[in-house]
């Protein structure tokens, strides 16, 4: 490998890239990780301790784009359909952190697995007109050992018996669940009485000391913040493991402009990037691994003009269709203490007689919504901004109906794949490096909207049963015909998937079942771009599990296997 700089160059240091770096370096391979954002996560010199930049600071994290991307530097465009013209707005669209650690940095770490049916939605649940539902090229049983490994690497706390709908697992969670938030106890009790099955969320947050990192101390600055004490494992755990091998070179503020092919056009030679001074460099590697996320990965493929013989790069863009049902309470809930969300329920993922009847009435064979997060509010600046200025402001802030007395259900609704929903390159807007901005064209399928309309009133009834004195419902994106609220017209969900779909057939997918581009087989897509469907669960644990599987296969390691309890 005399002319190679490393075995693999990895674009992006989030959950996907960090996992690939860990797997490859553990197997003795060398990697260079190029991250366009800054490093606030950990020292890049031994012993790789915390950087010390992370703090309980609402201004820095929620008002000032500390983790990037800054929409002035990296604007993104949005339109609902081509009928909106070139774009409807420019700015902040799905701005998952652009920083060492990527999307894992700011997440509060709810890490559910998908269920068996989620890998076989087309064959088990059936097609839906207007959507291109497909089965995944492999099933849950094949992914199970990788889920287990992902939970061990990140460090997931959970209760294996808590969720009656969960699929089988070979091993218990590495840690017991952390403490239940008071607000979630209130909402869970009411939900249970109404026949639902709330459970303690599996979270990638230490409940006890784990992997040399301390137990969470419940500071409450969790979702949208990094963890000042490293109680969250994703992505610091895999990155630190990779660094400790001495075979991982993380280069922050390095922006990959192109993936470069050799003369045959079938192999990548490496990538070209700009460093923080704007100086161009080339990295040559045996493998190129793309872990830039389901927004930036297709954008990089499109501007490099590779991998797109199917014309599917950027298509089948999926967000979770979010439904927010919030209630205010006559008593204080202190949602600023704890891990942001400690309970979930899956009931609205399971079609029942009532939902099937509602679906038929709407002309759909069935629908599914998504997991419901039992959450509370934390930040007073966000609360204040949502209140009207003027004479009522100070009284409402002291009463805190929108923060200390607020309980919120967030449904991460399954979003069906549609070829017209896509990321492409904006014809005029560009980023600070002079490359075309990514543009989202997205409208929800009727399935998402009908599911949301069906389940929102049920969630309202749970809040009322829990004692809410006032409730309201909104969605992101807005339901058709509804005005945009505080979340705006573009989907606010940070869950983004599907833009380099994986499958066996090169005509109908971008990567093969091992996540390599059909067109260029030494390029592997490690992130959620490869998801064929979105299901209704947070994507991160599945990203990590897939990245372990694909990275192991890339360097010919044996597949992991597990044994289903009772079937040995």
């Amino acid at each position, binding site marked *: 490998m005399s002319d190679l700089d490393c075995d693999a160059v990895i674009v992006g240091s989030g959950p996907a890239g960090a996992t690939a770096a860990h797997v490859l370096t553990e197997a003795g391979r060398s990697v260079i990780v190029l991250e366009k954002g800054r490093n606030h996560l950990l020292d890049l010199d031994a012993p790789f301790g915390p950087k010390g*930049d992370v703090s309980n*600071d*609402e201004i820095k994290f929620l008002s000032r784009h500390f983790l990037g991307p800054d929409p002035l530097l990296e604007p993104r465009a949005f339109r609902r359909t081509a009928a909106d013209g070139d774009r409807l707005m420019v700015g902040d669209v799905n701005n998952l952190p652009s920083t060492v650690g990527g999307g894992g940095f700011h997440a509060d770490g709810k890490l559910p697995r998908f269920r068996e049916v989620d890998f076989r939605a087309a064959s088990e649940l059936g097609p839906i007109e207007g959507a291109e539902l497909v089965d995944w090229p492999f099933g849950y049983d094949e992914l199970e050992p990788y889920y287990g490994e992902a939970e061990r690497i990140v460090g997931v706390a959970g209760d294996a018996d808590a969720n009656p709908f969960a699929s089988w697992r070979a091993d218990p969670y590495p840690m017991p669940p952390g403490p239940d938030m008071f607000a979630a106890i209130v909402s869970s009790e009411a939900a249970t009485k109404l026949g639902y099955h709330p459970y303690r969320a599996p979270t990638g947050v230490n409940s006890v000391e784990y992997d040399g990192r301390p137990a969470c101390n419940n500071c409450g600055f969790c979702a949208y913040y990094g963890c000042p004490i490293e109680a969250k494992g994703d992505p610091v755990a895999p990155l630190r493991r990779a660094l400790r091998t001495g075979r991982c070179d993380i280069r922050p503020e390095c922006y990959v402009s192109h993936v470069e092919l050799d003369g045959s056009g079938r192999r990548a030679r490496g990538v070209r990037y700009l460093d923080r001074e704007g100086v161009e460099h080339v990295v040559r590697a045996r493998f190129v691994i793309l872990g830039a996320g389901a927004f930036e990965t297709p954008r990089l493929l499109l501007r490099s003009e590779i991998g797109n013989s199917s014309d599917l790069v950027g298509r089948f863009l999926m967000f979770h269709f979010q439904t927010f049902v919030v209630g205010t309470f006559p008593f204080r809930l202190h949602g600023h203490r704890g891990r942001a969300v400690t309970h979930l329920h899956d009931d609205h993922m399971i079609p029942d007689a009532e939902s099937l009847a509602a679906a038929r009435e709407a002309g759909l064979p069935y629908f599914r919504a998504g997991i419901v997060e039992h959450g509370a509010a934390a930040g007073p600046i966000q609360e204040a901004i949502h209140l009207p200025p003027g004479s009522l402001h100070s009284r409402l802030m002291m009463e805190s109906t929108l923060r200390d007395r607020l309980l919120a259900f967030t449904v991460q609704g399954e979003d069906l794949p549609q070829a017209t929903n896509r990321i492409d390159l904006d014809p005029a807007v560009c980023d600070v490096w002079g490359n075309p901005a990514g543009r989202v064209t997205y409208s929800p399928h009727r399935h998402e909207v009908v599911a949301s309309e069906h389940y929102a009133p049920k969630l309202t009834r749970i809040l009322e049963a829990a004692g809410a004195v006032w409730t309201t419902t909104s969605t992101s994106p807005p339901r058709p015909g509804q005005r945009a609220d505080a979340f705006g017209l573009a989907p606010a969900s940070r869950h983004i998937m599907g833009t380099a779909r994986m499958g066996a057939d090169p005509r109908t997918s971008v990567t093969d079942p091992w996540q390599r581009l059909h067109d260029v087989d030494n390029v592997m897509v490690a992130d959620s771009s490869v998801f064929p469907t979105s299901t209704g669960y947070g994507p991160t644990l599945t990203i990590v599990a897939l990245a372990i599987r694909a990275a192991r296969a890339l360097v010919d390691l044996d597949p992991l296997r597990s044994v289903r309890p009772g079937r040995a």
Partner: protein
Amino acid sequence: MTAPSRHAFFTDHEHALVGVACERMIPAEHGHPGARALGVADYIDTLLGAFSFDPPRIFAGGPFSGRAGGDAGFDRFVALSNTQELAWRTRIEGSLGRPEREFNGPVRGWQETYRDGIATIGTDFATADADEQDRRLAAVAEFRDLLYRHACEGAYGAPEYGGNRELAGWQAIRFPGDVQPRGYTDEEVSGRA
């Protein structure tokens, strides 16, 4: 550094007027000191004049403030990267015709929005009655919305950014603020109180 005036950006007159406008949006009430006593105008002045400090007062440091144990690190502001400096200078100062700031066209800066907004609401704004103040602010909606967002940050954000004087903003709303490295006990998380 030696500041040319008592403020990083505002004149005394502008500082006073911003204080009055913020007070109208976040007024003093029994149990709440209101924007002026919280030093919200100082917060906004620090933001608009962030580049008169080194490092610029954009991102407070970490990991702890010292209020809940540990060493005080918030007041050691984080140095900006080249691109962050470009973004924040553009956002605050405007693009000013400089090509490196105008790759997507001209950008109006917050300093200009404030200077124009303050001039438009009038030098007699402080003596106008509440309804008249509301009318004048409503007539400059872009400025009013920016001012309100900044006022909320200055009232309820970390005091190292210049506002939330003596933590009175957090005390008024019973918010403990940053709590690392102490955090909360399991009982405080799960219990009713």
